[in-house]
C-alpha cells in the first residue's frame, strides 16, 4: 500500500535494490529546462530527506549550466531533478536552465548550441519539452535532427517526454480531425518516453497505460529501419485501430519506452505536493535508470549506451515490463470518441516496449 509514487515505490517496482546506485567516476546525467522554470536546491535537499531513505544518493546538483532565475521554483524543474537523482541515484547531475536571457532568443535552440559548445557533457539528458509538429517548419526540424545526430555519435543518450495529450488532435477544415504528433518526441534520433499508471493506484501492482501518454506517428519523418518490424507487427496484430485518415502509418512511431507517470510526490518551494503527473515524470525516471546502466558499463570498461533505439528494438521487449492494458486519449469526435491507440503485447504507440525491469535490462545491456 502507498499514498503516491515516491523514490521507494519506483525503486521497488523497477527492482532497484539499495546497492543499485552509481559509483563510476566519470558518469553523469542531466535535465534541461527551457521555460521560466527553476529548481531550488533546498527543495531537493528536503525531498531527499523525506523520500531518499534506503538508498545512497546525492542531495546536491553538481553543475548548473545557464542562469537560474530568482523567485519561486517550478514544479516541472523540481520534478525532473528530484526523480532523475532518485532512480539515477548517487550519479553526478547537471541542470541546464535556459529561460532565454534575451527576448529574441529561443531557449530550446540555446540549449542545442550549448551541446555543440561543451566538449564534455553528461551521458544522459532528459527533456520534458515538445511542440506540435505541424507548428514547426521542416527545415527547422531537420536541422534539430542533425543536432540530435551530433549528440548520438558522441555517445550521448537523449530522452524526450512523449507528451501528455495522448495521440493529440488537430482540427482541420470542414470538420475533419487528425491526430497531432509532437516534436522532438517524433524525432527518429531520440528515445521517447511514454507514461503508465499502476493498475491499483495505491498498490505496487503491474502497470497499465496512463491515458495521457503521448504517442502516435510522425507526419514528417519516415519510419526508421530500427522500428519497422515492431511497428508493423503492432499494426497487423492489434485488435482495433483508429481510422487510417487520422494518422500516418508509415511515419516514425513513438514512444519507444515508458515508466510510471501518475501520482508522484514532489517537493517544490519547500512544500511536498502529491498527485503530480505526466510524462515529464516518467522521462527522468527512465533517464536515471539508463545512467545506472551506463555506470555499470563504465565500470566494465564499456562505452556509454549512446543513442539507444537501434539496440532497444533489437531486445524485442526483453528486460522490460510489457504494458498491455488501456488506451490513450485523442480527438473528441464521433469517429474516434476520444480514443487513440491502445496498448497491446510487445511494442505499441502508447507505452512503446514497456517499463524497465532494471536487473534484466542491465543484464541485456551489458551483454
Amino acid at each position, binding site marked *: 500500500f502507498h499514498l503516491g509514487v515516491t523514490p521507494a515505490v519506483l525503486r521497488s517496482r523497477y527492482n532497484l535494490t539499495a546497492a543499485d546506485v552509481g559509483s563510476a567516476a566519470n558518469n553523469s546525467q542531466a535535465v534541461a*529546462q527551457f521555460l521560466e522554470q527553476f529548481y531550488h536546491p533546498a527543495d531537493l535537499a528536503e525531498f531527499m530527506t523525506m523520500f531518499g531513505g534506503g538508498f545512497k544518493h546525492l542531495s546536491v546538483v553538481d553543475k548548473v549550466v545557464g542562469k537560474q532565475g530568482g523567485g519561486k521554483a517550478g514544479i516541472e524543474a523540481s520534478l525532473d531533478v528530484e526523480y532523475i537523482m532518485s532512480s539515477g541515484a548517487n550519479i553526478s547531475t547537471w541542470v541546464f536552465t535556459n529561460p532565454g536571457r534575451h527576448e529574441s532568443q529561443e531557449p530550446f535552440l540555446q540549449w542545442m548550441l550549448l551541446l*555543440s559548445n561543451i566538449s564534455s557533457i553528461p551521458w544522459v539528458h532528459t527533456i520534458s*519539452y515538445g511542440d506540435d509538429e505541424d507548428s514547426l517548419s521542416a527545415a527547422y526540424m531537420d*536541422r534539430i535532427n*542533425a543536432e540530435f*545526430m551530433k549528440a548520438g555519435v558522441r555517445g550521448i543518450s537523449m530522452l524526450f517526454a512523449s*507528451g501528455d495529450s495522448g495521440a493529440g488532435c488537430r482540427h482541420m477544415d470542414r470538420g475533419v480531425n487528425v491526430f497531432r504528433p509532437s516534436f522532438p518526441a517524433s524525432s527518429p534520433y531520440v528515445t521517447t518516453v511514454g507514461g503508465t499508471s499502476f493498475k491499483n493506484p495505491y498498490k505496487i501492482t503491474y502497470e497499465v497505460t496512463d491515458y*495521457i501518454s503521448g504517442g502516435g506517428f510522425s507526419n514528417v519523418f519516415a519510419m526508421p529501419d530500427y522500428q519497422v518490424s515492431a511497428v508493423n507487427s503492432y499494426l497487423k496484430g492489434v485488435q482495433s485501430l483508429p481510422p487510417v485518415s487520422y494518422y500516418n502509418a508509415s511515419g516514425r512511431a513513438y514512444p519507444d519506452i515508458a515508466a510510471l507517470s501518475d501520482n508522484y510526490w514532489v517537493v517544490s518551494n519547500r512544500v511536498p505536493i502529491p498527485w503530480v503527473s505526466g510524462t515529464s515524470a516518467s522521462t527522468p525516471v527512465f533517464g536515471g535508470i539508463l545512467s545506472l546502466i551506463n555506470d555499470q558499463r563504465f565500470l566494465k570498461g564499456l562505452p556509454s549506451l549512446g*543513442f539507444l533505439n537501434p539496440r532497444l528494438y533489437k531486445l524485442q521487449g526483453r528486460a522490460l515490463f510489457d504494458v498491455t492494458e488501456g488506451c490513450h486519449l485523442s480527438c473528441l469526435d464521433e469517429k474516434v470518441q476520444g480514443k487513440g491507440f491502445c496498448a497491446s503485447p510487445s511494442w505499441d504507440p502508447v507505452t512503446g516496449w514497456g517499463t524497465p525491469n532494471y536487473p534484466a535490462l542491465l543484464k541485456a545491456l551489458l551483454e
Partner: protein
Amino acid sequence: HAAYLEADQDTTVPEDWVHAGRVSPVEEVELTFALKQQNVERLRELLQQVSDPDSDQYGKYLTLEEVTSLVRPSDLTQKAILLWLNSHGVTNCHTVLTQDFLQCLMPVQVAEMLLPGSEFHRYTRGDRSLIRSASPYAVHNDVSQHLDFVGGVHRFPPKSEVGKSWSGRRQTSPG
C-alpha cells in the same frame, strides 16, 4: 535580390501571446544563424554504425572535435555569411565549437534590413515578453543556400513544457 527561406516561414502568432507593439529600431535582438552543415548524410550513417550492436563500430563514439571536422560548414558558407553580416555592420557575433551556428547581436533596424520582410514586434504572455516577427523574412540570394534557418524571428515557445499536468485530473479511489 532576396530569396525567402520558404521552409522556415511559419509566421503564426499563437493565440495566447498578446501583441504589445512595434519594437524600437534601436533595441537589440540576438539572432541565431543556422549555417548549412557538411556531410549530414555521413553523420547519419555514423550514428547508425555506432548505435547498432551488430556493427563493428558499435560504441566507437566521436569526440566533439571529430564531429566538428565532419559537419563544420564549408569555408565558402562561412565566408558568405560573414561577408553578408559585415556588409550590414553586424560584427558582434559568436560561434560554437562546431562552427555551424552563429549568434549575432544587432539593432532591430539592422535586423530588418538584413532580413527583408521581417518586422519585429513585442508579444507578451503573463509576465513573459518576447520579440518576434509575424511576417516572413527573406535573405539575400547569395546567402540563402548557406542557411538552414534564422532563429529568434518566428518561433514562439510552446504553451507549456509537456507535463505539468498534476491534478485532480482523475478521480480514482481504491476499491
